């Protein structure tokens, strides 16, 4: 059954290790480690989390859950903020 998973053979048995994972971030390809939370992603990008809103696969991620939501392979993440506009 393990063969059904797409993990590289060399990684089998090393599931505690963070694996690289592809997501789409603001429309661009981006790589994160498995287990990354929204808070960790914003931290790595040096984005102040009080000033932004985050959407994951078209659903809003409430700020109160940034610590708990763990990114998954293929997630489409949007990070937006207020800018000048009319």
């Amino acid at each position, binding site marked *: 059954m393990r063969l059904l998973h797409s993990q590289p053979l060399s990684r089998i048995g090393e599931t505690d290790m963070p694996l690289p994972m592809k997501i789409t*971030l*603001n*429309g*661009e390809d*981006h790589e994160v480690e498995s287990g990354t939370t929204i808070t960790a992603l914003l931290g790595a*990008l*040096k*984005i*102040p989390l009080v*000033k*932004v*809103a*985050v*959407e994951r696969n*078209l659903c*809003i991620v*409430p*700020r109160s859950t940034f610590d708990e939501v763990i990114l998954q392979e293929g997630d489409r993440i*949007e*990070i*937006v*903020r*207020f*800018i*000048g*506009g*009319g």
Partner: protein
Amino acid sequence: MQDKPLVIAGREFTSRLIIGTGKYKDYAQNAAALKASGAEMVTVAMRRVNVMNPDEPMLVDFINPKETVYLPNTAGCFTGEDAVRTLRLAREAGGWSLVKLEVLSDPKHLYPDMEETLRAAKMLIDDGFDVMVYCSDDPVFARKLEDLGCAAIMPLGAPIGSGLGLQNKVNIRLIVEQSSVPVIVDAGVGTASDATEAMELGCDGVLMNTAIAEAQDPIRMARAMKHAVIAGREAYLAGRMAKKRYADPSSPLAGLI
């Protein structure tokens, strides 16, 4: 004699001028123009964070959302779904339910797509938003938007960013007369007299961006707009004299030497 405050969705405003935050040289100039204008509410847009440059200037560092009401807009949205998605993000980012809905059609004239606007307004109101809606100057659509429960009706005076001034005063007046929610002319103001004219027609407020931002001296124009809106409002409340076909001397004719 004190004017009554402008009340939108239960929030009170002393200033009847709302300004945009786009097209300024930088946010510092924008903040200075805001101060000069006396406005208490600014429109803002939602856009992606530049993940390559997280240190780029943030609007919130120049215009404090605790002191000035942020009115998130849906500029650039061409469908109801886009607009609703954008404003839900804005609500999460700022916690505000008062929003400006604009669903555009053709980039050449940026007229609102009224069919989509009506649909989006209903979705937003059902979702608990207080919707200030950019709309055409058609009194029939304005009535429909009010019946849906919009918090303010905001007909365009002329195409966005054109600075052409009020193109259809008859329609703006009809909308003012029929509406029981605030009517705010949004878009088309080019200079102070345009803002005064909108207020003289009985509008409850004026929203402008380019007229200030693209003036040679934006801060001075912001101050001019502040006075223009006050002057127009006062003239409306005062009630203008009747127009006459011929001269009527101001000095008495009796006792002439």
